[in-house]
């Protein structure tokens, strides 16, 4: 018996040198079971954690600007999280103080406007997908009016609108993009109303949107208007659902977690992955998308994969200001932080 005990003791000795399994925390605004942004984020990160071998602790339904976020951060750190994802736009501004007090914890935020040494802005180059979606919309429209229901004119939304518009112009220079603001990420009634106005007042025959819910596709489907989905694989729609801009969040999260484990996130301001890494793509084409359209889109995609810069060459905004001269390219930093304009060809539905 004693002999067995001795041998077991010797054999178990190794375990003491093994580092403990790392943990990360994930804080999100909505319910992680809710389809759209919340579910896609949660599924992405949980899959990535499973692959990489990290334990995931989740705090969902955490309200912005309510003090719930800093409290959740403290809880997660107390439970041993080495990295925390702040997965809603306003979290980083609210939690900035507590983030700076925890230099040993890596933070990641999807807002590029707040910077601290231990916080990395994490984004996908979704605008590349928007560019391809715009190219599809430009080819599909007959009225040359494309409707865009958007939440608020922040850098991310503007970047999407601009890339979409540049895509439209790449296939149909005559087409215009009409944007209707809702003022909120989740406002189904307003979204429905805006979509109806875009169809009925502006005469849009293709719609897209930047919202967390699916009020716009529902309205478009009901109105018999083409639409392009965003961020979620839409199901139960007709061929009017031309395609969707999707993001492989699991791929993105796997990459950033790998960098976290390798200790490469120190003082990394932005971590952007794009179409070249297969994180972003336009997919689920409906029969209404012709083979010609598809090959054109594939061509444009190839250019992007091979480092074609969307925001390069001469670009004016819709007020006539030159935003990028010929031979120049808008840098990533500017794209992330300072897009407060819409490109020429964008009309705002008042």
């Amino acid at each position, binding site marked *: 018996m004693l*002999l067995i005990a*001795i*041998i077991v003791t*010797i*054999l178990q*000795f*190794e375990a003491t*040198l093994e580092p403990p399994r790392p943990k990360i925390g994930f804080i999100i605004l909505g319910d992680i079971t809710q389809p759209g942004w919340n579910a896609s984020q949660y599924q992405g990160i949980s899959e990535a954690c499973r692959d*990489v*071998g990290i334990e995931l602790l989740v705090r969902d339904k955490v309200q912005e600007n309510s003090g719930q976020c800093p409290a959740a951060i403290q809880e997660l750190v107390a439970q041993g999280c080495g990295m925390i994802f702040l997965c809603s736009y306003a979290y980083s501004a609210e939690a900035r103080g507590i983030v700076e007090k925890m230099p040993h914890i890596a933070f990641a935020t999807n807002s590029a406007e707040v910077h601290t040494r231990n916080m990395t802005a994490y984004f996908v180059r979704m605008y590349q997908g928007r560019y391809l979606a715009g190219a599809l919309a430009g080819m599909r429209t007959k009225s040359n009016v494309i409707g865009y229901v958007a939440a608020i004119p922040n850098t991310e939304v503007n970047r999407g609108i601009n890339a979409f518009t540049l895509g439209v112009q790449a296939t149909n220079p005559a087409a215009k993009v009409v944007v209707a603001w809702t003022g909120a990420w989740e406002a189904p009634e307003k979204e429905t109303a805006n979509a109806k106005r875009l169809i009925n007042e502006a005469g849009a025959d293709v719609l897209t949107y930047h919202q967390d819910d699916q009020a716009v596709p529902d309205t478009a489907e009901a109105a018999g208007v083409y639409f392009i989905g965003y961020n979620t694989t839409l199901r139960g729609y007709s061929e009017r659902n031309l395609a969707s801009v999707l993001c492989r969040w699991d791929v993105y999260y796997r990459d950033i977690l*790998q*960098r976290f*484990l*390798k*200790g*490469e996130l120190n003082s990394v301001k932005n971590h952007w992955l794009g179409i070249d890494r297969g994180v972003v793509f336009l997919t689920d084409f409906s029969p209404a998308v012709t083979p010609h359209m598809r090959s054109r889109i594939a061509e444009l995609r190839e250019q992007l994969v091979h*480092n074609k*810069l969307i925001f*390069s060459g001469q670009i004016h905004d819709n007020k006539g200001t030159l935003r*990028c*001269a010929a*031979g*120049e*390219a*808008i*840098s*990533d*930093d*500017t794209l992330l932080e*300072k897009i407060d304009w819409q490109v020429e060809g964008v009309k705002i539905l008042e």
Partner: protein
Amino acid sequence: MSSDQAYHLKKIILQIVNLISILLLVGMLAHNKVAKVLNTSMEHHVTRQAMVFSIMAEERFDRELASLRLAAEYLEPYGTQERKKFFQIRAKALRGGISIGLMNLDGSSIYGEALSERDFPRLPMAYRGVSVVDYCPYKGLVFVVPIYNGGNVSSITYRLYDDALLVDHFGFAEYNEDYRLLIQDRSGKIIIPYKNFGAADRLFFNEQNIRNGYEHIREKLTFSRAAAVYADGAEGRFFLFSADLPRTNCSLVGYVPWEVVAGGISRIHNLLLRVGFLVLLLFGVVSVTLLVMQKKAVEGEQLILEKELAEKANRTKSLFLANMSHEIRTPINTILGMNEMILREGKHPSILAYAHNIQHAGTLLLSLINDVLDFSRIENGKLEIVTAHYRLSRMLNDILLVVRPRAEKKGLALHIAVDETIPDTLQGDAVRVQQIMVNLLTNAIKYTQTGHVDMHVSHEKNEGNIAWLRFTVSDTGIGIRQEDMKRLFSSFERLDLENTRTIEGTGLGLAITRDLVTRMGGAISVESTYGQGSTFTVHLPQEVVDAATIGSLDAIMQAASHDMVGYTGVSFTAPDARILVVDDNEMNLLVITSLLKDTHIQVDTCQSGQEALERLTINRYDAVLLDQMMPKMDGVETLHRATQLPNATETPFIVFTADVTAGTRERLLKEGFSEYLGKPVKPQQLEKVLAALLPSEKIRPAPNMPQPAAPASSAAPGMTELEALAELNEELGLSFSGGQHDLYAKLAQAFCNLHASKKQQIAEAFTQQDWKTYGVHVHALKSSSLSIGGQRCSAAAKALEAAANCCLAETSSHEERQEALAYIRQQHATVLRLYDDLVVLLNSKFTMPV
């Protein structure tokens, strides 16, 4: 026994071998584990080291980028042509192998060579505003930085290092000599080798074990920036490591000899190994010792067990011996008792001779049995010392009584010298003191064929009221060999067997003697010359009760003389007295009845306590002799019941028992008995006890005995009575001298020589009316004259002594004193005349000059 030992040895060796192999197994396991753990921790160490190297490499790259960025920032406000001009100036200052350039976003060159995206795939990242480090085989290592125009990137600038410069500029040789560091690109091509990198190093990296090690590292690098593994290479043990350079498409690779990392740790490892070995050795030795000790302990336990068994068996035997001895005494008592009757009543000379022989053999048997009994008591620790008052003179008297006949029988001279100043009345165990002296004396007599046995009694010193008595017994016997001395006091030892074969005894005498002496707090010693004789000396502390001294030897001798003549007949008669004798043994009843026949006492007998009680209810007895050991109702119980009876309230009860163990007498007297008699009952003792206890009015002197001097009465011996006694009884005198005519003559001469001075002393005391001194001198005259056979003189002196004592006694009334005084005055002259006559007679007899 030897096969048993061999079996034990085999078992022990097997156990030790088992133990050691288990320990070796555990040790090897632990050793492997320790080595593994050490390697793991060293891998961690090397990993951290690799990380540090990678950070240093990155910093070096960062320095390059920072200087480029500075230039880019400087160039920001300028247009394309000014930028180009700046580069033209700058390029002149560059060393060979380093080239710089300025490029448009479309990949066209403004200054210098246009770099291809195919050669440097990371180049377009610069268009997005990111600083880039990239490598292209044969082209070299490039650092690219964007030049901004507001928030937009307007062109990029680069600095390209030729392959040939890389080792000098970015090699790690100076960081750590022991570490071999190189930088690879992602495809595994070595970009920056270490100095002196050659074919041997390529072989090293191509070795299968090493390649496997790096493969393992690549797996680890998925989730960590740096990794290290331990690998056994052809050239020894190594730690291989690798680390990412995240800013580039390169990684850092290297290896380090195991010894470099292990350094001090390996010494700890060796130390542990050695200590472990020593501990193993120690353990082995300790376990062998323990096993041997355990075996011995088991054997020791067995020995103790065997010893206990042996002791138990011995105790059982001793007990059996004691019981048997006790049982044997009873029939011997009967034999001796009946033999006593034969001696008294037997007429036929040959029958008497047979009876004498029986008496001799019986007494001897009894003494042997007593020895055995004493010895078994000593063995069982039951022998007790019981102290009581006794008179030394009386004891010496008794001793002589026993010893003298034996000496006489062997024709040995027995010389007794007694220090006159010894206190007479002492406290101690008289029975045992007497036993010691008798043992020594009888031994001396036993082992002496010719010559003499001397006894000297003295006392050495008084400490408080303790007198240290010294008895010295010396003989001219066979002596003791020097080598036998130490066995002298051992049990059952008979020394010098060829010379002592014919001598009777158990061999226990001296062992018992020594034990008794030791128990009394005394000491015994012996000096001996083989063939010439031995001297035994006993020192005994005895408590002094009375300062009165023992007096001269004569007095003792005289006191002994009564008994010396042996049993001559009953000392009194009491035809009116009636006694009851109770004993369950019919023979004993017969013995006692016979012994008392001549006293004419009316003796009733019965055989049980119950019967005795019935008798006592009916009759009134003057005394009752009660046996202690009786079935059903023992002596004590009978006594207790009897004293309740009206007829027996005043009756003295005498207990007699074969139990002569120490303390019995005291215990029985405490129970209420008036007197105690040991069995076998001695006739004199029996008579003495009865004489003391029977009502005095019923006692009459025996017809053949002189009336006991009655100092209180006027019945002083008249002349007629005196004249009836022989003036000189030579036979009696000779008997006192042990039948030796020489001695008798000497004693007589001494008696005559002392005549003048003694007579004068008596006369002086008489004229001074010092009756005390007078009594002492008259007493001495009584004793000394008797010892030479002057019976008449002695008797007269005795009467005077009694009268003198009466004068002095406090119990005497005034009339009695006057009467005694008158007697002295009347008889004083007569006694002196008798004294003179005796001296004259002796002088004529031995014709000695006065």
